[in-house]
């Protein structure tokens, strides 16, 4: 036994010293002082907010770092019964699309808003992959404020990356599709299918998004992207795969060529062309949903037109840079000079130089074109290659100290290397199949080089087993020294992809604590219990209800009939931080509500059976929380029961008819 472990240890040490590190046991992974580096004592705050994509749960989760404590789940693209998002009358419109309300999506990447290439703590942008959409989340309320659908797109994958002053958010197609809704054979892919790169403008003050223009590209798969910064400010870079233009068994057919492309887009030029009328306005329907804070209600507008820019009509706007096989990450270093492509299927990491790229363009060092778009000579744009970094380079983040960190999907490790001389400096194992990495601000001009988080796809032996499906995992590394050190595992929701993080101080003190009841502009607000009311119009019944510790007004409602459409408009009269009230009614095939202090939210209930329906507050609010309840009486259609409601009036007996 002893001998075996000695041999094993030796073997591990040798392998680690030689090439990629293969140690896969938890015992050797963590050193003694790891716990003290992540311990945040009760009552103390974490240093960092970490926003993690929810993958197939469609939401965004917020963790504190370095503790890994889950702070909040923000519903964005998936209905959330916990607080009625997508179920309440106010929020249904947020999930509206040209295909009606879609209750689910696949949320992959996040980007925090920036000013001058630094995080400004205002908004968080999120993409929906499946039904292409981009959302904006307000970081004073942690609420989704806006969702914009993207037409002419499928698999909205290289999204929602932003320019360094949040001028634009991009949305690049993963699956090429025909423009518009024409019916064409799949085999006509090369002629009829296109990828698009959509540029969404963001209003400086309000954050309001608008689909400014779409650049039409050849049929291929856009994977990830990042905007330039500093000297490369005017440019956006997208990685691509399947430039073979295959449309079946991509596993084989999209792996034929030894290089795909980084698509370099001069968005400043594109903006000029759009303004100069070089684009073509074409019909395209897409939903634009916005949440009005004053009315506390979302509205959905269907738009009918989009501006398309064709590279043929817009010279110098788009270039291709050859990049070794199937690049995933396309990451720009803090100086804005280096563009790191990560060829998932390549055994090296190509690093391009922005200044060499512009020189190559000026000197027309091209090696042909891809459907009319000039292809820059590989060597002309190349800064150099990181040799033998590991297997399956996927995504690179930066520490602001001249180092890059690349995740290695196949060899399950993080590799640290130097941007200057492209030498590998350090490597640590991950558990297992790491996807994206995240350094707080690691994609900005000012990364915080203290921590790195790896978001893994597979977790086998990391947590207590929970049947066939295990928790996804994030792993926190201390990168403050020369050697990376694993200091924490923490589970995440869904399948985590890209994440963002910033110093807590950027956001913490801006938090809204409650909504001012006097500024509540909801159409169905109840300004005080005196205004509580029940109004019938045909078979629609509007209940103006209030909630405060620890009662609802009204709490007895009669004269409602089977077949009525009952709307409970519940106003939370509290004006105190951290005192939401809940509202649920028995057998309602809907969800509950969580109503924040000073807010009004509406739950629809259409009873189809007579009976007494209790309703109650679901969020424990006071010692008398259990008492915070009431009854709705639903009588048969046509019954002779007058409309009646109240709280605090007890009647000795009322004959039921």
């Amino acid at each position, binding site marked *: 036994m002893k001998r075996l472990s000695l041999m094993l240890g030796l073997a591990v040490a040798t392998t680690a010293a030689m090439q990629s590190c293969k140690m896969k046991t938890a015992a050797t992974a963590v050193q003694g002082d790891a716990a003290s580096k992540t311990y945040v004592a009760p*009552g103390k705050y974490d240093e960092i907010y970490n926003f993690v994509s929810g993958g197939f749960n469609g939401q965004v989760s917020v963790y504190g770092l370095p503790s890994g404590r889950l702070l909040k789940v923000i519903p964005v693209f998936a209905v959330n019964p916990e607080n009625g998002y997508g179920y309440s009358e106010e929020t249904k419109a947020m999930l509206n699309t040209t295909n009606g309300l879609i209750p689910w999506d696949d949320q992959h990447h996040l980007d925090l808003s920036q000013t001058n290439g630094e995080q400004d703590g205002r908004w968080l942008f999120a993409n929906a992959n499946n039904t292409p959409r981009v959302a904006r989340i307000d970081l004073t309320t942690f609420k989704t404020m806006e969702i914009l659908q993207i037409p002419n797109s499928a698999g909205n994958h290289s999204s929602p990356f932003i320019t360094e002053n949040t001028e634009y958010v991009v949305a690049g197609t993963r699956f090429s599709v025909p423009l518009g809704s024409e019916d064409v054979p799949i085999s006509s892919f090369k002629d009829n299918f296109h990828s698009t790169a959509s540029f969404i403008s963001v209003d400086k003050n309000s954050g309001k998004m608008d689909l400014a223009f779409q650049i039409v590209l050849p049929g291929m798969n856009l994977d990830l992207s990042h905007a330039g910064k500093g000297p490369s400010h005017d440019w956006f870079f997208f990685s691509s795969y399947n430039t073979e233009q295959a449309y079946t068994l991509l596993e084989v057919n999209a792996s034929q060529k030894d290089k795909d492309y980084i698509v370099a887009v001069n968005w400043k030029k594109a903006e000029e062309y759009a303004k100069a009328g070089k684009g073509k306005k074409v019909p395209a329907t897409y939903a634009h949903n916005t949440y009005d804070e004053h009315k506390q209600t979302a509205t959905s507008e269907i738009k009918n037109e989009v501006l398309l820019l064709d590279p043929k009509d817009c010279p110098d706007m788009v270039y291709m840079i050859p990049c070794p096989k199937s690049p995933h990450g396309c990451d720009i270093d803090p100086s804005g000079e280096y563009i790191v492509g990560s060829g998932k299927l390549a055994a090296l990491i190509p690093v391009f130089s922005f200044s060499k790229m512009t020189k190559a363009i000026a000197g027309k060092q091209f090696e042909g074109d891809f459907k009319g778009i000039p292809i820059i000579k590989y060597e002309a744009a190349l800064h150099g290659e990181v040799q033998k970094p590991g297997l399956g380079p996927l995504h690179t983040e930066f520490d602001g100290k001249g180092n890059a960190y690349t995740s290695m999907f196949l060899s399950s490790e993080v590799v640290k290397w130097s941007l200057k001389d492209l030498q590998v400096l350090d490597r640590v194992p991950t558990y297992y199949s790491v996807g994206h990495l995240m350094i707080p601000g690691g994609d900005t001009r000012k990364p915080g080089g203290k921590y790195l988080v790896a978001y893994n796809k597979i977790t086998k032996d990391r947590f207590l087993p929970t049947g066939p499906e295990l928790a996804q995992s994030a792993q926190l590394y201390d990168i403050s020294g020369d050697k990376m050190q694993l200091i924490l595992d923490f589970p995440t929701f869904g399948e985590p992809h890209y994440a963002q993080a910033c110093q807590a101080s950027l956001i913490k*003190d801006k*938090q809204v*604590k409650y909504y001012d009841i006097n500024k509540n502009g909801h159409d169905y607000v109840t300004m005080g219990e*005196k205004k509580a009311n029940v109004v019938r119009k045909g078979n629609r019944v509007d209940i103006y209800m209030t909630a405060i510790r620890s009662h609802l*007004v009204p709490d007895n409602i009669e004269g409602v009939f089977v077949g009525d459409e009952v709307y409970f408009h519940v106003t939370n*009269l509290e*004006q105190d*931080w951290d005192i939401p009230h809940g509202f649920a009614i028995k057998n309602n095939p809907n969800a509950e509500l969580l109503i924040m202090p000073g807010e009004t939210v509406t739950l629809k209930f259409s009873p189809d059976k007579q009976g007494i329906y209790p309703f109650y507050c679901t969020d424990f609010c006071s010692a*008398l929380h259990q008492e915070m309840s009431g009854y709705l009486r639903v009588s048969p259609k046509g019954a002779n029961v007058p409309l009646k409601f109240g709280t605090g009036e007890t009647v000795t007996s009322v004959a039921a008819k």
Partner: protein
Amino acid sequence: MKQASLLTAAAAIALLLYGCGSTPQADTEKPAADNSMAATTPATPTPAAAAAADAKGKGKFTSVALTDPLDQKMIASGKSTYEVKCAACHKLTGDKLVGPGWKGVTERRKPEWIMNFITNTDEMIDKDPAAQAMLEECMVRMPNQHLTDDEARHVLEYMRSNDGKK
């Protein structure tokens, strides 16, 4: 910033006085004493003043000038605040609803106590003996409804009018 550190210092001293077992150092870092609320939380009086002013409660109001005759504008404004923020729990009669009825409140309590209770609710419930006695009776902590100083003063005027003051 200055106000925040003053508040922290005052909280530490208050703790020493009222003693709840934890060390003042640890307590200054508790979220309960978090500075993020400093903008809306009034400064705590010095311990000496607080001890001398039990009847006035705890909070920034140490002296409230009353009007004579009552200010009708303040009454109207106080009434509208009452209807939105207070009526859910307080009747204008002497009957208890969730909280005590308001009839006679201006006889039972000093104006400063009332103003402090409205604007500094949590500290009053935690430390003021009369407020604690009411909590034992009502079993619901009065929600801090975040009235401005003016709104609180107007509500006081409305209470005085409700008590038949002229």
